């Protein structure tokens, strides 16, 4: 599909498949619109051309009601966690359950505690979001994303800005939840080592096109210099260090 924002083409005729039950990573330099891709999948944005299908449904042809039904089967983890700041951790996770089901409060309590337990934060249930550290907030958001037992979970930059321990925790959680809950996970990130360690398949996107795709091993052994620069994190290569400018001598002499 293709998608433009104003006159800028963000995605130019790209095609991706996200296999069921696996962890798929979407990686690329900052600003290539990876978050936009997640919003397109979730139906918040509409592609200019082409289609997005989930589980056999064309996401953008659904009625509002059906779209909402579909979204219940998707979980999304936002970059900042996006927890509701005026209610505590427990209520945040209980929120989608209370809204979409008519379950009894005692049942809801058990569910919430189990989800919290899966992310290791059962003891934090009474804290307010403002009292949580960044990593803890992300874990709570993860628990909320799986509250309704979705079939697919999308992670928007889950590793950004985390200390090594929290990073390890998150990495572990994403993989183990994917296995144990039989989810299809989509991880959008530019943290190479972490993402490579848990993904089954990776798409590298840059300038609106898919530059490379494959399993982590395939990419590590790729002969494409651009891929190598990205994976190894080299400062200079196909993506130049210097932003385009006239030669240095010329600039200095110009004043």
């Amino acid at each position, binding site marked *: 599909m293709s998608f433009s924002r104003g006159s800028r083409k963000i995605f130019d005729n790209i095609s991706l498949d996200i296999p069921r039950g696996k962890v798929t990573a979407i990686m690329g330099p900052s600003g290539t619109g990876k978050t936009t891709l997640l919003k397109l999948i979730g139906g918040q944005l509409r592609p200019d051309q082409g289609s997005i299908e989930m589980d056999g449904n064309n996401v953008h042809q659904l009625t509002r009601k059906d779209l909402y039904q579909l979204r219940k089967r998707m979980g999304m983890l936002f*970059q*900042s966690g996006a927890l509701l700041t005026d209610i505590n951790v427990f209520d945040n996770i209980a929120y*989608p359950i209370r809204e979409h089901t008519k379950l009894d409060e005692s049942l809801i309590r058990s569910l919430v505690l189990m989800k919290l337990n899966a992310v290791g934060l059962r003891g934090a249930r009474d804290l307010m979001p403002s009292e949580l550290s960044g990593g803890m907030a992300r874990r709570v958001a993860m628990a909320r994303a799986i509250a309704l037992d979705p079939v697919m979970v999308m992670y928007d930059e889950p590793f950004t800005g985390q200390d090594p321990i929290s990073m390890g925790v998150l990495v572990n959680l994403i993989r183990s939840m994917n296995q144990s809950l039989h989810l299809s996970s989509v991880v959008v990130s530019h943290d190479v080592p972490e993402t490579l360690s848990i993904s089954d398949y990776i798409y590298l996107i840059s300038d609106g096109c898919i530059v490379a795709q494959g399993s982590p091993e395939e990419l590590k052994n790729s002969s494409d210099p651009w891929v190598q620069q990205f994976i190894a994190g080299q400062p200079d290569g196909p993506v130049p260090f210097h932003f385009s400018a006239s030669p240095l001598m010329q600039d200095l002499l110009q004043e």
Partner: protein
Amino acid sequence: MLDQLQLTGQRVIAVFARLGQATLFLYQIIMTLPGLMLRPSLIIKQLYSTGVQTLLIIVVAGCFVGMVLALQAYYVLVDFGAEDSISQMVVLTLMRELGPVITGLLFAGRAGSALTAEIGLMKSTEQLSGMEMMAIDPMQRVMAPRILAGFLAMPLLTAVFMAVGVLGGYLVAVHGVGIFEGVYWSLAQLKVDFYSDLMNGMIKSIVFGFVIVWIAVFEGYDSVPTSEGLGQATTRTVVHGSLAVLGLDFLLTAIMFGDI
């Protein structure tokens, strides 16, 4: 020169475009109303933040405005020997104009800016997006209760303002300046018409309340999610809301009182 014209033209078109956006926004909210009725707790919570928390400033303002009105009225009327008409002037001015307008301006400043800031913050921390992805309609859960609450709170606040103002005027007139108590109340009763004065004032307040919250919620929803953007959005709410109150007041006054 031509550039200026083009710029002006663009600005005018932009204003209309914004108005269109705001109207579509309102339409979406109205569509959610039937469902909202099943969740009165949301409305009550918003009534608290917009209404109850504005009550204090309204009471204080009303009291002082009423007292000042009475004082000024006395100074003017006493030259004509007509100081008994003081209550008439205080009550009519409060009911017809000052009640709805001052309450409106205070409401736009206090409740309006708070609404915009709150919603703008929710937008910038992706809470609104998050709700959408959880298949919960933020229009119904966040926007609509606030608009309804503002709509309900304004007339109540205006009534309180008017009542406190009348009492403030009473204090000054009867206990300050020496008008007879009976004269104060009975002249007011005689000269103030329930329908054309009180009800018109209340209608004004309902219209103002609706417009102010509409602007406030829309500006919050449409704000640029940076700290600068939020500041601009709250400023716009207060400025546009206040201007709308004053402009509509003129319009409504002309319609309602023009015939007399």
